[in-house]
C-alpha cells in the first residue's frame, strides 16, 4: 500500500516468502502465478496439517489462506501464524465474507482473485514484517519441531 512497502519488495534480493493454503489446485496455481509476478517466493499446501508443518519448519513473510479447506476450518493455521506474528489474509468465495472468529481484522480477498488486491496486501505484509521483525530470509532457519 505505501511506497515503503513497494520499495522494500523491489529492493530485496529475494522477494517475500509467502505461504498459500488452498485445496483447489487450479486456484492455488493462479495465486502462485500472481504472487510470483509480484516477486514473491511461494509455498503452496492443500491441507491443514501440511500448512502447520510448513509454518513450523520454514520462515514466511505472510500467508494467504482459503477459509475452507476440504470442509475443515482454517482456524488452526490462522492461530499458528498469529502466534508467530506472521501477517496473513483470508481468501474466500463466501458471500458473507465470513472469517474465523477472532481474526476479523485481517484482510479478506474475495474470489475471483484481484491481482491489485494481492499487490496491496503483499505490500502491507512487508510493512508489517519490517515493523515487527527481520524479513524471513534473514532469520536463521527454524529447526523441525520448534
Amino acid at each position, binding site marked *: 500500500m505505501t511506497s515503503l512497502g513497494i520499495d522494500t519488495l523491489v529492493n530485496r534480493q529475494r522477494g517475500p516468502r509467502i505461504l498459500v493454503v488452498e*485445496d483447489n*489446485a*487450479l486456484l*492455488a496455481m493462479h495465486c502462485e502465478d500472481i504472487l510470483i509476478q509480484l516477486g514473491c517466493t511461494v509455498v503452496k*499446501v492443500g491441507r491443514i496439517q501440511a500448512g502447520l508443518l510448513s509454518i513450523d519448519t520454514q520462515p514466511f513473510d505472510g500467508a494467504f489462506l482459503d477459509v475452507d479447506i476440504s470442509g475443515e476450518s482454517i482456524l488452526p493455521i490462522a492461530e499458528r501464524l498469529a502466534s508467530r506474528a506472521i501477517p496473513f489474509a483470508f481468501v474466500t468465495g463466501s458471500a*458473507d465474507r465470513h472469517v474465523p472468529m477472532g481474526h476479523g481484522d485481517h484482510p479478506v480477498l474475495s474470489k475471483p482473485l484481484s491481482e491489485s488486491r494481492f499487490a496491496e496486501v503483499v505490500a502491507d505484509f512487508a510493512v508489517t514484517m519490517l515493523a515487527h521483525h527481520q524479513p524471513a530470509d534473514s532469520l536463521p532457519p527454524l529447526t523441525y519441531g520448534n
Partner: protein
Amino acid sequence: VPVRNYGGDVVSLAASVRDISARRQATDRQALIANELTHRLKNTLATVQSIAAQTLRQATSLDGFGAAFDSRLQALAGSHDLLIRAAASDVALADLIAIALSPYGEPDGDRWSASGAGVTLNVGQVLPLGMILHELATNAGKYGALSAPHGRVGVSWKVQFAEAGSRLHLIWAESDGPIVQPPTRKGFGSRLIADCVTGELHGDFTMAFNALGARCDIDIPLLAAGNVS
C-alpha cells in the same frame, strides 16, 4: 392472530406459531442454499479465471488461446455435468475417462480402452481428476499416440486395499504413436497434473516420456465417500 367475522368481531385466535417457524426454517434454508450457491459460483468463476490466465500465459496466438481455452472450459463443464447428473459421490471413474476421451470415439474402439473394477469417486475428486484426464487426452491428441492414425491409449486401474485406506492406482499408457520427444518445457498440462495430484488429490504420480509412448502413473487415496463395487 385474531380471526374476525364480517362484522369485525374476533371469533377465534389462529395458532400461527408453527406456521411462522416453518416459514422461518424455509427462509433460513433458502439463505443457506443461496450462500452455498454463491460460494460455489465464485469458486467456479475463480477456476475459470485461473484456466484463462494460464492458457493465456502459454498461448502463442489469439486463435491458439481460443481453441485451448474452449477445450478446457468444455472439460470443466463435462465434469460438472457428471456431478449434477449423478447423485452426490456417485460419479464413476469410467464415465470421467469416457468424457475426457470422447473426441476419440467410444470406449474399447480403435483409439482407446478403459479397464478396471467399478470405482466411484468422491465429489471432491471429480473436477481435479477430470481436468487431469483432459490434459492427458489433449497432449495425446496434439503430440502423442492420438496424433497418429494407429496410436492408442490404454487406461487401466486397480484398487489397493490397505488398513490406512484404499488407494486407486491408474495407468495412462500410450502406444503405437509417433516416437515420443520429451517436452522441452513444463507447460500448463504437466503443471496442472502435478498440482492436482499432489495438492488436491493428495497422491503421487510419475510421468514418463518413453520413446514408444508416454505413460502416466497416478496413485491417489480413495476417500471414505468413494467406494468400490
